[in-house]
Structures are given as C-alpha cells and as structure tokens.
C-alpha cells in the first residue's frame, strides 16, 4: 500500500467505526450467540445448558402450535401482501392521471402510514367492534350483518388484513414515483399502434415498473414474517371479551413472531425462542429464494 492508500484505509475505518462497532456488538456477536442459545436450555437467570438439537426436534415434531402459527403467518402473507400491492398500485395509477387536487388525495392516502402502530391497533379494535363499531354501522346501512371480526376465528385474520390495508400509503408513494418514470413516449407509440388501455397496462406500464413491484413484494414478504405489534395489541389481553388470551379466538391470530415473543419474554425459554428465530430465518430465506428464482417477469431498464 502507498502512503495515500494507508491514509485512506485509516480514515475510512475511522469514519465507518460506528457501524463496524455496531455490526460486531449488535449483529455479528448476537448471530453467533443466538445460534449457540438455540442449542441450549436457557432461561436468562441461569447459565445456558447445552442440549444439542433438542429445541429444534421439539419445535418441528412435537410443538402443538408450530404448524398453526406458521399457517397463520403464511395466511397473512399470501392474502395480505397481494391485496396491499394491488390496492397501492390502483391508488397510484389513479393519482398518475394528471388529476387536480393531487397533493390532497396523496396526503389523505398516505397519512394513515404515519399513525403510530399502537394508535392504529387501538383505533381499529374500536372500528371493528361488532356492535358499536364504524364498519358495522356502514354495513348496516347496506343491510349486511357485520361478522364478529376479531372475536370470530374465521374473520380475525381478514380483520387484521383490513387494518393493514389502511396503511398502504407508503407502498403507494413508491408505486407513484415508479409510474412517473415510465417514459411517456412508449405510451404515445402504443396509442399510435392502436393499443387499448388494458394492453398498454399489461405491455408497457407493468413491465416498466416491475422492479418496483418486485421490491415491494420482497419488502411485504419480509414484513409479514415479522408481523407482531398489531396482532399483539389487537388480540392480546385486549379486554375480557377476548378472554385476555394472546392469539385471538381459538389461536386464529397466533402468528409466528407472536409465539416466539411469548416463549422468549413471557416464559423465558430463550433457547427455544432462539431456535424458533433460526427456523423463521431459514423459512424466510427459502421464500425469498423462490421469489428470486421466479423473478423472470422483472425487467430492468438499461442503465442510462
């Protein structure tokens, strides 16, 4: 290394030192420790006791709730993510038509995304109240009976998905920015060729913004594996009417991250919870891998 290179190396490390330190203390070390804990019986108070793969064996083959929580999480993902992408894209497409009051509409659609998640959860428990809630009132004017939402095992997950849809503003903003970058010339050329609206959507707009769809899809999938706060507040000990039990009626909203939290911080089974975290990591990697492998529909424009 020349003198210049040595200087750069020293300065580079110095300026990056907060991240290097943080990476070692809060990421690298904990990854190693977490893997070790997952092979131990560990309740925080006493030293971890090495038990080999026992946690994994119990989790995968004996835990009565493992498959149920996985199912609940995948349900939220398989229905929740596509619905939020479609809604966000539709709103963005409506806003991308040089309408007036653009910033007004954009604000109204985006604003729910900045509402603190605790406030969202409490508010929606009240909105979804099967007797006095606002949705019941709306449905009643249409002559439809409201389901029990959070109190009904069949409707509790749709109720959570509905709550999540209120916060699609973030995704909508990303779609809108993507739509605004679709070259107008392509649309004009297609119009000259006589393409109708649907053909232009399918052959121009969607391919052009496919990287944005892809990004939002991956982010949505990652977020649904970690989905916790809302379900914890909305269906845990919320009031006597929900029996004060976590995971909603008949465990229908006991999602994976909630189950993990219960093991870690309510039963202090840190070893078992660590094994759960590693299984979660592996499953999410597998899902992301499948999405990457089937991402032939994503078209990247040449770098300009």
């Amino acid at each position, binding site marked *: *290394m020349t003198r210049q290179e040595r200087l*750069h190396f020293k*300065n*580079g*490390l110095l*300026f*990056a*030192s*907060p*991240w290097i330190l943080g*990476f070692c*203390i*809060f*990421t690298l070390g*904990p*990854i190693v*420790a977490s893997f070790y804990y997952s092979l131990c019986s560990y309740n*925080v108070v006493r030293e971890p006791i090495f038990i080999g793969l026992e946690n994994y064996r119990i989790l995968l083959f004996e835990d009565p709730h493992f498959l149920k929580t996985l199912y609940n999480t995948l349900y939220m993902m398989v229905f929740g993510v596509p619905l939020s992408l479609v809604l966000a894209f539709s*709103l963005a497409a*409506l806003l991308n038509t040089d*309408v007036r009051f653009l910033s007004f*509409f954009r604000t109204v659609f*985006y*604003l*729910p995304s*900045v509402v*603190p998640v*605790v*406030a969202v959860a*409490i*508010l929606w428990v*009240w*909105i979804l109240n099967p007797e*006095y809630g*606002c949705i019941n*009132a709306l449905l009643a*004017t249409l002559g439809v009976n409201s389901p029990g939402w959070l109190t009904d095992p069949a409707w509790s997950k749709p109720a959570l998905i509905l709550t999540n849809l*209120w916060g699609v503003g973030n995704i909508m903003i*990303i779609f809108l*920015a*993507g739509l605004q*970058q679709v070259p107008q010339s392509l649309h004009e050329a297609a119009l000259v060729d006589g393409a109708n609206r649907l053909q232009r959507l399918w052959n121009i707009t969607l391919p052009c913004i496919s990287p944005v769809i892809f990004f939002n899809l991956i982010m949505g999938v*990652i977020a649904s594996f*970690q989905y*916790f*706060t809302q379900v914890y*507040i909305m269906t845990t*000990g*919320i*009031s*006597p009417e929900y029996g004060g039990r976590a995971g909603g009626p008949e465990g229908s909203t006991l999602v994976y991250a909630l189950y*993990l939290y219960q093991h*870690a*911080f309510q039963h202090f089974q*840190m070893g078992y919870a*660590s094994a*759960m*975290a590693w299984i979660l*990591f592996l499953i999410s990697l597998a899902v*992301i891998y499948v999405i990457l492998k089937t991402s032939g529909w994503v078209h990247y424009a040449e770098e300009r």
Partner: protein
Amino acid sequence: MPRKSNDRTWIYAALFAGSFLFFLPFWWMVISSLKTNHQIFTFPPDWFPWPIRWRNYLEALTFIPFLRYLWNTLIISAANTLGNVLSASLVAYSFSRIPWRGRDACFYLMLATMLLPPQVTMIPVFVIFRTLRLIDTFAPLIVPSFLGTSFFIFLLRQFFRGIPEALSEAARIDGCSEWQIYARIMMPLSITGLVTVVVFSFLWSWVDYLNPLIYLQSPEKFTLSLGLQQFQSSHALEWGMLMAASTLMVLPVVVLFFIAQRAFIRGIITGGLKG
C-alpha cells in the same frame, strides 16, 4: 372527446370514494373522543355528535400519566435522532467518499443485514443489556442508534454520491482533512438528506412499540406507545378517553408530516426506487 371526460368522471369518483374510506377512521377517532359513554354505545352511531364533550381530553391527560409518557418519548426520540444523524453521516461519508480497501464488502454486508429478521438478534441483545444491568433504562432504546442504522446509512450514502466528487477532491488537494471535508462541505450540502434522516428517525422511535415493551418495566419510564397500550388493556371500555389519548398521540406526527412532507416522500422514494 366524450369518452375521455367520461373516464375522468370515473377517476374522480374512485378517488373521492377512496379518500372517504381512508379518512373515515380519523373521523371516527375524533368523534369518538368527543362523545360521552352513553353516546358511544348507541346504535346507529351519531356521526356528528352534539353536545361535544371535551372532558375526555382532560381525563386522558390526568388519568393516564400522559405528559410523563410524552416527555419520555420526546427524550428517546430526540436522542435517537441525534445518534442517527451523527453515526449515519459519518459512516455514509466513509462508504461514499473515502476509497478504502474492503469498503464495498462492508457496504454489501450492511445491506445483507437488512434482510436478517430482528428476532434472530433480539434475544442476545437483550442478554447483553441485562448483563450490563441496563434493563428498565432508556439506554437499550438509544445506544444502538449511535452505532448506525443501516437504512439511514444507505439513504445518506445515496445522497452523498449525488454531490460532485470534484468538490471533495479539490478540498483534499487544498490540504483539507477528511473531517473538514465532512463537516464543511458534505454536511452543509446534504441538509435535505439530513432532514429526511431526522424526520424518519424521530417518527420511528415515536411509534416504536416492541423495544419499549421488551426493555421498560416501571410505569414512570413508559413511552406513549407502551403507556397507551398498557392503559388500554386495563380500561378497554373507556373508548372516549382512549380515542382522546390516541388523537393526542397521532396529532404530533400529522403535524410533523405537514411540516416535512417533502422529506417524507423523498425518504420513501429513495428507499424504494434506488434500493
């Protein structure tokens, strides 16, 4: 062009219907916060309640130690904001302006950590803070931001890369140290990027729930999110007061959004499009 104007009618109809539905929960929150319990448990509900009952707000501020929670939340959010601005700008400077060996490897490593579920590191990090006897203090909620948050580092790196390299090169030739280039050239030219970091850093610690839930135990240390949830779990039927407290909690972020609307949108787009 009759067909075209017909289209526009449909677009406006869809937009107005959509904004009505998105706005409705806010309206429901505010009217519920102004109702008596008797008005609340009425069906069909009263969409324009009268008389208005302001008492719920008074009760929310006194029954719930609202101001205490507000103060705690403000301290934590302000500290996180300071930590993120300092650490993210320093690291982003290193990642974008200093050509050192191993830099790109570190940058991609950082991007990769954004895919790691926080559940994997959550337990060992808890054990660290427990060993240091820092449970039930603000330290676990504040310290990590001083050691860099990947998203903010990424965001500022994108921003720094947009500033002409010639500026820092010229300064370097004139004998400026890296500190001087960082503090006198890059930081002043990145005000808009820094505002985005400030806004999101503040917002995220304002709305954070999981970390206060794990680390805070004494009620006098609770943040707004944790305090409001704890209160709700014991007074679940006091909807008027709960909605008043929620309104008070939502109000600051709505105001923040209107003040810094462009910073919000820039942050989301940088994260989403260039990511």
